[in-house]
């Protein structure tokens, strides 16, 4: 039976993606759903992770549901598929207008969708699930499966509740995929999704063509200078990652002042259309550098990104590898550099602190929920923000732990918040709740400390990354890392850069390049004038 499945997958690979061969691990992962079994695939970022479920989705008879944590990632993936002529891909999340959601759901019910991307929050909505249950589902995919684990760097409480959704959809085979999973995270994923341990497909997470550099700098000014220097000398195209929107804007301004051409900003605060245009300019090599927050690039199918710089230190090694992994998907030599100043742990530390509610917030929320006169059965996100200053994420973390402690049961999402049912048992104390939340926060700080240890370690970067994920590797196709020594000429641009182009702009020429067909009333009149061409 395996041979027939392999053959079907190979044919589909050629037909839809134009590849002749699978990459390591892909085929092995894909065989499980065809045998009706659950599996966990761990493949390096840029190692063809998405293909592991996209291909089976196209071959299997029913629909495939893909749970994905990031809205931008979903949109990118669907766009990529549709761009390959795979029109039966859709995504639904709460960011879409109600009208657009209804339209897409109708397509799903009519059986016109083969691959449906959904946000985990959406799967918590009962009315949505009732609709989805009407469609036969062949495969349930959990992308970025590390989000399921408390030990993961990006724990999402909604991921913990996927099990019941899978049952409601007729218990199809489950495929969990991630690029980064430590042993503890692997175990969590397997337990939560009923995956036998022998069904873990583990490939090397070593990206041999990426060179890991860390630049140690004295202060912010030195860091800016180092960034600009790299932008001037490195072979592009490339990405520079930041942890805040305002920092991307600042860097962009600085680069423009310094005459660095063809760069743009990308972050979640921009409108959807504007972001799409920036992506397309980048894909079409009209842009050379993008200053981005981590909203950029998850699903970008750009194979020739030559460098990834980090202006801010990510809060953990997993995030760092995920972002760096966007470089060199074509297998060509690529360069990654973390720009580091001694104060750099402060920002990620703050960001972690903001993710969790503080003691006062926990206390007040707890008291409000269990005060004698007011036994709450639900809360809206707006109310939580107004009454206790709880952000949506803080609220979901708090409620998640409260349910786990048995303070209430059957916690579920509503369209604008949460509802639950009262518990039979006597509620546990406020202390145990605070304790568990703070413990989680401490674990995140520990991950940050791990990241810092990696930065300051004098050992080979590649070796220490591998060790963190319980792997043993050191092979590199170009230079390995700053600790082993880097030949920068491998990553630098030999050619002189063009300076600002001054060209005549002519509207007829512009229209000709948009629509290169001759037209009947072709007038020869040319109306040109000098303008700085935007680059």
């Amino acid at each position, binding site marked *: 039976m395996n041979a027939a499945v392999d053959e079907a997958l190979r044919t589909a690979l050629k037909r839809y993606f134009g590849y002749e061969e699978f990459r390591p691990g892909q085929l092995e992962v894909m065989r499980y759903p065809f045998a009706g079994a659950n599996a966990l695939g761990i493949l390096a970022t840029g190692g063809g992770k998405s293909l592991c479920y996209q291909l089976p989705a196209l071959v299997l008879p029913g629909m495939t549901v893909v749970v994905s944590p990031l809205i931008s990632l979903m*949109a990118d993936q669907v*766009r990529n598929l*549709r*761009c*390959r*002529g795979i029109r039966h891909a859709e995504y639904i999340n709460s960011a879409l207008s109600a*009208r*657009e959601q209804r*339209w*897409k759901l109708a397509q799903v019910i009519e059986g016109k969708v083969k691959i449906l991307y959904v946000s985990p929050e959406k799967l918590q909505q009962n009315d949505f699930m009732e609709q989805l249950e009407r469609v036969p589902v062949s495969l349930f995919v959990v992308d970025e499966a590390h989000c399921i684990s408390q030990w993961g760097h990006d724990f999402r409480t909604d991921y913990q509740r996927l099990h019941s959704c899978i049952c409601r959809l007729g218990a199809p085979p489950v495929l969990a995929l991630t690029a980064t999973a430590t042993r503890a995270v692997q175990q969590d994923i397997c337990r939560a999704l009923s995956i036998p341990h022998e069904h873990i497909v583990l490939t090397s997470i070593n990206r041999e063509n990426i060179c890991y550099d860390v630049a140690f700098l004295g202060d912010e000014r030195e860091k800016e200078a180092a960034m600009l220097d790299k932008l001037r000398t490195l072979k592009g195209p490339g990405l520079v990652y930041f942890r805040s929107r305002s920092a991307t804007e600042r860097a962009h301004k600085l680069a423009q002042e310094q005459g660095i051409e063809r760069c*743009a900003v990308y972050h979640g*605060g*921009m*409108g*959807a*259309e*504007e972001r*799409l*245009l*920036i*992506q*397309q*300019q980048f*894909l*079409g090599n*009209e842009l050379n550098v993008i200053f981005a927050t981590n909203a950029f690039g998850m699903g970008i199918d750009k194979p020739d990104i030559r460098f990834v710089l980090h202006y801010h230190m990510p809060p953990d090694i997993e995030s760092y590898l995920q972002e760096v992994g966007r470089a060199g998907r074509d297998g060509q030599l690529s360069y990654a550099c973390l720009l580091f100043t001694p104060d750099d742990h402060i920002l990620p530390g703050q960001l972690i602190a903001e993710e969790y509610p503080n003691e006062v917030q926990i206390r007040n929320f707890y008291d409000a929920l269990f005060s004698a006169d007011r036994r709450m059965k639900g809360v809206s996100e707006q109310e939580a923000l107004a009454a206790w200053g709880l952000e949506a994420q803080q609220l979901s973390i708090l409620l998640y732990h409260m349910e786990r402690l048995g303070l209430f049961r059957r916690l579920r999402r509503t369209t604008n918040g949460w509802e639950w049912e009262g518990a039979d048992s006597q509620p546990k104390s406020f202390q145990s709740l605070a304790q568990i939340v703070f413990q989680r926060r401490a674990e995140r700080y520990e991950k940050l400390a791990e990241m810092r240890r990696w930065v300051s370690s004098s050992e080979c970067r590649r070796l220490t990354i591998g060790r963190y994920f319980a792997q043993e590797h050191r092979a590199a196709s170009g230079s390995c890392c700053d600790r082993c020594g880097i030949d920068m000429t491998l990553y630098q641009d030999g050619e002189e850069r063009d300076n600002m182009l001054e060209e005549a*702009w002519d*509207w*007829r020429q*512009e*229209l000709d*390049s*948009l*629509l*290169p*067909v*001759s*037209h*009947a*009333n072709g007038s020869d009149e040319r*109306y040109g*004038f000098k*303008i*700085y061409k*935007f680059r």
Partner: protein
Amino acid sequence: MNIQFMEGLFLLAASKFQGERTPQAIVHLLKGRKNNQVIADAALFGVSMLYGALHAFSVEEVRRMLDDLIARGWLGVRPGKKAGVFCLPAGEAALMKREARFRYEACCRSVSSVHEKVRAARFWKKLSLLIQTFSYWIAGETLFYPVVEQRELQYEVKRVIKTYPDKLEAARRMKEEMVRWMEGLAEEERMLLLRRLSGKARAGLTYRQLASMLDTAEGAVEMHVLRLAAEQLRRLSSGAYPMLAKVAGSRSDDAALTQTARWTKALLAAGFSLEEIVRQRGLKPGTIEDHIVEIAIADPAFDIHPFVSPEKVERIHAIVREKGTKKVGTIKREAGDSYNYLEIRLALVRASQGGR
């Protein structure tokens, strides 16, 4: 977004309101609050183009910007139960400077209602997608990243394309219509439109990139693209642009009305009277009257004369001119008891649209 440009939005709104609306009405307008009164006011004072201009900001942020301008002495608020906001001399001076640079008035003139603004935006999106599609087809490619993500608009574009069996010929005709359009525009306007469009050879520019190229504000660029689209929509009835007219679709195709108002419109079209509709739908007369006003705003061709006689419209317009007010209550006091609120509101709608 450019701060001067944003200040201008507040100043313009206040200057148009002339103390007849509250400061909060400006916040609702610029935030684009989905509310019939806000939409009706936008049409009444000729500022529909500003509707939702600051939708990306929170209500609190917009309110704060407004309060800043009051504190600066640019905007004044009349005391009283219904505090009216107006532009102080310093504000008017600041507005003039900003008007010279960003030309808001031209944008406001291009649409008479929020519905027209929405229609212009949809027209421009569909046109962008159609031109991108042609651009790839000419290169022999059918797969690309569409610049418009809304499936619904994608479907409408597909429907247009299906009516042309010869794709290259269709592309050629599109180009002809584009040339005709561009020939009538100023050089900067051509650049604005053509550089925003995406094709096979290159992707379009973002509003921000266009703004830095033309040395203006991001928001101004966006507004002028909409203005140009809206102005082109008005030229389509000439018959010189058959393909663009198809892309625009008919006015009633645009689902700009609320569901409930659409129902009322259908009943009116079927010949039911206001009273009959009230009875049949089991709603209050005031609600149905709101629908009729909404329909009149959305559709300048909607006949208001079954509800208000031409003589009354004439008289109401005269009062508006003489008293310089658009307050329904003031007009009613002036006109007398034989005039009801629906009559006055409908006449006001047509006054702001320059017709009767």
